[in-house]
């Protein structure tokens, strides 16, 4: 068993490195996140019609998110474990509050207005759900027994349904996969995974029954975008045109004609990958995917080096959820998955997801930089 400490693994020569280490910052992860944030500004400048206001607002959010990440990296992972259940319960309570308050408002209600800023409990639940499941499973021997699986399953389903009811299909999908990620790393048997996959496929008609009209529209549009080229299919058709016209080398920065001429809707938010693909081409796309893959690999490495079950499960799940983010967003933009409202992590315009994501990375850094020597 490895017992090396952090300082033995890395020897950054600079003063900055020393400061970062004092801050409990994981340098490879930090570099990856920093690069991708930089890329975000570059592409946002182009996608947002070169509007500096957008960049300034985004910069404020990213700054806040990095700050929060640093703070969380400082916290001992033991504290996360200790407050897992409490935080999860609090998150659920806030979710219910949003739903109840939403009854009085109009339509979709995701926000809780706290006066100074608006808070989205579904974002918090994205992190507290894997914390809760990891905490619960870590209390027992792994792999989990059927009874523990059942309880864990229920714990995942409750927030998932509450968020789906808001309705926010994208977020509920991410919450469910963060919980499922924990179960996977906890050693859920492959046979069981296959069985669940089969059951879910069987449940599709029932799920269909409970979907809202616009959610059904999205699925139908995904299956046949040409059926409604003016309405729902418009996004997918236009985004494919943008991506395909980019070719291998792309049209160059600020060279996208599709988003410039307003053909591509939501080009700064959910569909920003289409702008990226149009301007930077296949090479750019592969580069971006490689950068994402590097970040995910580093996260998985951190998980593999974690010292206790709770930290491993949580770290693994956070890495996995990050990938789901990337996969679902890019999948929908290139037309292999239905359109659900999931932003491209760390690149799309919009604050809440960036804050949540970097909080997750803060926890990962905390896990990696608070190692204790194990007795042999």
């Amino acid at each position, binding site marked *: *068993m490895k017992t090396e400490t952090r300082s033995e693994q890395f020897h950054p020569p600079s003063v900055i490195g020393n400061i970062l280490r004092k801050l409990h910052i994981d340098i490879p992860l930090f570099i990856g996140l920093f690069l991708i944030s930089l890329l975000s500004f570059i592409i946002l400048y182009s996608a947002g019609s070169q509007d500096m206001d957008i960049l300034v607002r985004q910069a404020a959010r990213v700054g806040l998110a990095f700050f929060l990440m640093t703070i969380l990296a400082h916290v001992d992972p033991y504290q996360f474990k200790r407050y897992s259940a409490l935080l999860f319960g609090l998150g659920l309570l806030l979710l219910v509050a949003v739903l109840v308050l939403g009854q009085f408002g109009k*339509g979709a209600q995701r926000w809780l207005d706290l006066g100074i800023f608006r808070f989205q409990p579904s974002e918090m639940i994205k992190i507290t759900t894997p914390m809760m499941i990891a905490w619960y499973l870590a209390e027992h*021997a*792994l*792999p989990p027994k059927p009874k523990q699986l059942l309880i864990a399953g229920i714990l995942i389903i409750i927030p998932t349904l509450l968020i789906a009811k808001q309705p926010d299909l994208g977020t509920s999908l991410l919450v469910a996969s963060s919980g499922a990620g924990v179960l*996977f*790393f906890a*050693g859920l048997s492959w046979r069981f995974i296959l069985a669940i996959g089969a059951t879910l496929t069987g449940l599709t008609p029932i799920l269909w029954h409970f979907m809202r009209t616009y959610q059904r529209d999205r699925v139908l549009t995904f299956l046949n975008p040409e059926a*409604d*080229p*003016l*309405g*729902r299919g*418009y996004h997918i058709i236009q985004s*494919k*045109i*943008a*991506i*395909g*016209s*980019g*070719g*291998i080398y792309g049209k160059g920065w600020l060279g996208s*004609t*599709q988003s410039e*001429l*307003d*053909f591509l809707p939501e080009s700064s938010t959910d569909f920003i990958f289409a702008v990226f*693909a149009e301007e930077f*081409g*296949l090479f750019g*796309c*592969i580069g971006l*995917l490689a950068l*994402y*893959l590097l970040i*995910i*690999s580093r996260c*998985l490495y951190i*998980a*593999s080096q974690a010292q206790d*079950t709770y930290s*491993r499960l949580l770290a*693994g799940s956070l*890495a*996995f959820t990050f*990938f789901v983010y990337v*996969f679902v967003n*890019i*999948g929908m933009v*290139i*037309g*292999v998955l239905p359109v659900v409202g999931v932003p491209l992590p760390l690149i799309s315009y919009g604050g809440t997801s960036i804050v949540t994501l970097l909080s997750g990375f803060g926890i990962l850094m905390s896990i990696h930089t608070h190692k204790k020597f194990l007795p042999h």
Partner: protein
Amino acid sequence: MSRIYTIKNKLVESRLFLNRIIAAFIVISLLTSGLIVRLVYLQIVGHEHYASLAKDNSIKIEPLVPTRGIIYDRNGKVLADNTQSFSLELIPEQIKNIDDTLLRLQKLLDISDEKIDQFQKQRKRQKRFVSTPLLMSMSDQEIAKFAVVRPYFPGVDIQARLVRHYPYTDLASHVVGYVGRINEAEMKSLPIAEYRGSSHVGKIGIENSYESELHGKTGYAEIETNVQGRAINTVNSVLPVAGKNLYLTLDIDLQKTAYDALDTFNGAVVAIDIKSGGVLVFASRPGFDPNPFVIGISNDAYQALQSSDNQPLFNRALRGLYPPGSTLKPFIALAGLEYNAISVDHKTFCPGYYQLPNVSHHYRDWKRGGHGSVNMTDAITQSCDVYFYSLALTLGIDRMHDFLQYFGFGEKSGIDLTGEKQGLLPSREWKRNRRNQAWYPGETLITGIGQGFLQITPIQLARATATLANKGEVVTPFLVKKPVDPDATGSDTENPQENLELKPENIDSIISSMVNVIHGARGTAKSIGKDINYQIAGKTGTAQVFSIKQDAKYNENDIDFKLRDHALFISFAPADDPKIAVAVVMENGGHGGSVAAPIAGKVIKQFLGSNNEN
């Protein structure tokens, strides 16, 4: 033992976890490769195809707006159609300095600031290359003025658009309604795909309640455009399907007769074809000109309509609430007969007032000195209040409530217009729930003569009258002939669904009493019964707007016009084979017999007269 187990377990766990990390990495790599394969497919294999769509010439999908259906009356007269109108439109994308352009246009064509604001609002909601109207229905002069300087205004052009037009203006404004610009709330509730390119939506009346039929199905064209977004060539298109034309049961000539007859009074006239339920007249006076609403009514004009004392925007026939007054009496008498509370020959002595046992309050009859001894026919013919006070007390509020409900009082008539008011048919329960009070016998009395809490709409009154004339077969009023089809001439039969199963002899004696109201020597509306070869059945009514003190005397000339009684009249004809039922409500009209009855008389005579000729 347990310690060893735990340690061993930790090792197993650790190995298991490492396996999972590796598995996860493999799955993630595979899925990422999947994404890359798809990207290769789009960006290398499909590149030429997509590049040709996007590069020099881009395919733009433009909605093709369907033509809105035309609304006709029962004789094919046009109530709403689409006329060509010229509007000044701007394409923001092609204008360098939009504020300056607007300023110059404003000077040139004398455009109001309000219209500029409206344009700015709409512009923000639309894409930059969408042509947005600034000035609608331009005059020939304006067109000429702009044509001269057109070269100095790139991105500004005159466009021909179809604009909704209502030839009968105020006459049918409340039935036909109007279309107006789609507002932000409607933007959210309308099906987006169907309304791409549509700027207007039905706001009230038939235009609103049959919006989906009238609108039609939006088509689209794939248009090749150059880099500036200007159309070069249409590649492919799916044509729009025009909205369906609607044929109403309304007779616009009859409507005009009724509307004109209301003259300077505010009020409503509703006439129903009894056999089908088709509404022949649905007049609410005053009306308003719906045409300005289509092109965007100015704030001042709208405020003027809103704040007018006569409330021209208020659909009295559908939403006006009035006490039915004495027009309720035939229904109460019928209830008395059906519940065996009275016989036709039962007599009540009317001294000019009625007193509840042990109560000093005098419930007055409209006729000072009273009607003497009256039977049912006398009571209806002369509208004796005392007879009905007495009958109401015998029936009790519960039975009256139930019976009146069968005729649709206090219920929406179900006419195919949105926004109908329900009115109020009071009951013991209602008073307990809403006012937390017990029901008093005095309230039963005044309900018996159509006063008190009772509030009904003119369409309800007409429907109840039609149901009565139809001998208890419930009539459901409607305005649009079914089936809704562009080339259907339309059969307007919509069979009555429900029969109240009233005894024929009871109905007959009520009808003959109502005939007496018009053709009897002492009838309250005998003025309209002359010079016709058939009989009209009717009942006058006067609804109190304010109550007079016990010892005071109501004098029409002494009180303010707005506090004068409402005049009502219900009727149907011919009495032996009823075809048309008419209800008239005239606000502050005074006595029903003298002002309201002649209006119904004109409508009936015109309808039956023209029908006889056919």
